[in-house]
């Protein structure tokens, strides 16, 4: 029933330890939100699950669909069903977005996906080149909609996005995580990092966690946790409402 299991994972970059004996389990059909101050290891966690090789795994393991993927390459993980919307993705010169969609998934209905994200005008543009902050986020969603991962990771998909487009992005996330289907028939899962939680007005998260200093310090209902953070900050949240 677990889609993703992270067990006692310790990760460092250079000499700095970022995650310490980190544990997290996500069921099929569940979407989790991740809160926490800057520099607490949220992006690192997503990058390590994606398999970006700049990190050192000091211990523990990551299991996806029952398979230990701790040392698997990025592309193997992607083909196994892990997808990621990057916070600040690079621009790729000479690679048109519509061509990338085809490369990601030759069967994808590119025009429909672009239309859904109101992004047709960018089909012939180089991927992310000269895109504004909000356009980059829509470009990421377009690519994920083509990729159709079983587990989607979203690193601040709402930062720099205007209200109208936050709604579009929220709907896309709901589609990717099958929130448009009955709970019992959902098989896809997700994890989302958000600072201000705006996106949660437009998408459904089942559970939320607060991260501090490389570990989860509190978990619970996303709405309640967000309210506590707004009222008394990340540290305050730990003391008050931790139903789990």
């Amino acid at each position, binding site marked *: 029933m677990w889609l993703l299991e992270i067990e006692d994972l310790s990760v460092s970059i250079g000499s700095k330890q970022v995650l310490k004996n980190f544990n997290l389990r996500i069921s099929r059909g569940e979407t989790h939100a991740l809160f926490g101050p800057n520099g607490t290891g949220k992006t690192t966690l997503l990058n390590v699950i*994606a*398999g*970006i*090789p*700049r990190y050192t795994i000091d211990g523990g393991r990551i299991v996806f669909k029952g398979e230990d993927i701790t040392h698997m*390459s*990025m*592309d193997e993980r*992607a*083909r196994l069903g892990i*997808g*990621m919307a*990057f916070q600040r*993705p*690079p621009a*790729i*010169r*000479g*690679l048109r977005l519509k061509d*990338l969609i085809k*490369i*990601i998934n030759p069967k994808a209905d590119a025009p429909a996906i672009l239309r859904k994200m109101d992004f047709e005008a960018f089909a012939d543009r*180089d991927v992310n080149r000269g895109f504004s902050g909000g356009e980059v986020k829509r470009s990421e969603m377009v*690519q994920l909609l083509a*990729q159709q991962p079983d587990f989607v990771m979203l690193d601040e998909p709402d930062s720099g996005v205007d209200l109208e487009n936050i709604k579009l992005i929220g709907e896309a996330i709901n589609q990717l995580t099958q929130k448009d289907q009955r709970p019992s028939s959902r098989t896809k899962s997700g994890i989302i990092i958000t600072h201000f939680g705006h996106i949660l007005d437009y998408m459904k998260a089942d559970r939320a966690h607060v991260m501090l200093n490389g570990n989860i310090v509190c978990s619970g209902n996303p709405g309640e946790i967000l309210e506590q953070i707004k009222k008394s900050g990340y540290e305050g949240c730990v003391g008050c409402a931790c139903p789990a």
Partner: protein
Amino acid sequence: MRVSSIDEKARTARGKKALYGTDVDLESYESEAKPQGVVANAEDLPSVVKKAALDVGVKLDSESSGAYVQMDQTPVIAKSLYEGVEIMDMASALEKYDNLQDYWWKLVAPDADKYTADVAAAPPAGYFIRAKKGMKTVFPVKSCLYLGSTDLNQRVHNVIIAEEGSELHIITGCTTPAHVQRGLHIGVSEFFIQKNAKVSFTMIHSWGKEVEVRPRTGITIAEGGSLSNNYILLKPVKTLQTFPTATLAGRGAVASFNTVIYSTMGNIDVGSNVNLNAPDTSAESISRVVSVGGEVIARGRMTGRVPGARAHLECVGLLLSDKGRIYSIPELDGQSRDLDMSHEAAVGRISEEELEYLMSRGLNSEEATSVIVRGFLDVEIKGLPEELKQEIKNITQREDLKGAP
């Protein structure tokens, strides 16, 4: 220049080494080739030639304003399909136009080096293309220079004239079939772009591993005239050296050079040299070089001689192997006040971040590298008709361009 004086100059320069590039022993090549039969239409060409032409982006059967095909030393087709463009083989043009007194060897000196001297001493072969005054067409003249005999020194001398207010597009593919073990190609080209004329010249090279190439090009652009010059080399070559020189002679003349190189071996020395001699002229030179082996020297020189001239050079290289070398030499020579000249040069590797990004979408490392390399070589070329743009794109997006040999 009188014929006797051309011969005389050529004689004095027979042993003169070129300023750039490795030295070629001309004596080690044959200068005589078996004459080829002239054909009436492109369809009648041997299929091996048609295939080779296609390989360098020259679709001889599709819509064009004319064609020129030279096999070894023989012009086998020189044919115009549009009344606004005159196309002839060079010997016929010299005969018709009184030795082309105002054009022949006016922009390239016969005694520039041993290669020009060698061409000057040889019987004239090559194309004469003239866009008549005010005549415009977006259909390109298609030309193919085919070096089909081993050990041959193929010599070509072309003259291109775009008369006042005309628009002319030329695509030239230069190629050797796989069975040619060794060869030399020397091509002299002289471009006269007259007042307000617009020319694009796209050249695609596809040689063999033992072929040496020495193009020699001179260009003059009059008031309001423009040139978009595009050079693409993606296949192995033993040595190649070219440094076309353009002079912007009239107010508002514009030149743009785009160079795309994918090197796997050999010694490739390419560049462009632009003299901005008139007010409000501008020039741009963009080169993209990928080396997975072999040495590439990418030169660019711009000389600004009058106020208001604008020039920009961009040499960017991706070096993907320890066996390769990319030597980028941008030069700006300002000789007047109120100039605007700049350059940008970079040699490096593929960004890890871009690789990881594509791998996170499921591409393996090789596929991701190849996508990035092809994107890097996809230069946005201005001033070309849509069909030619697409041809160039098809060529630079070939699947076999990878990160490693």
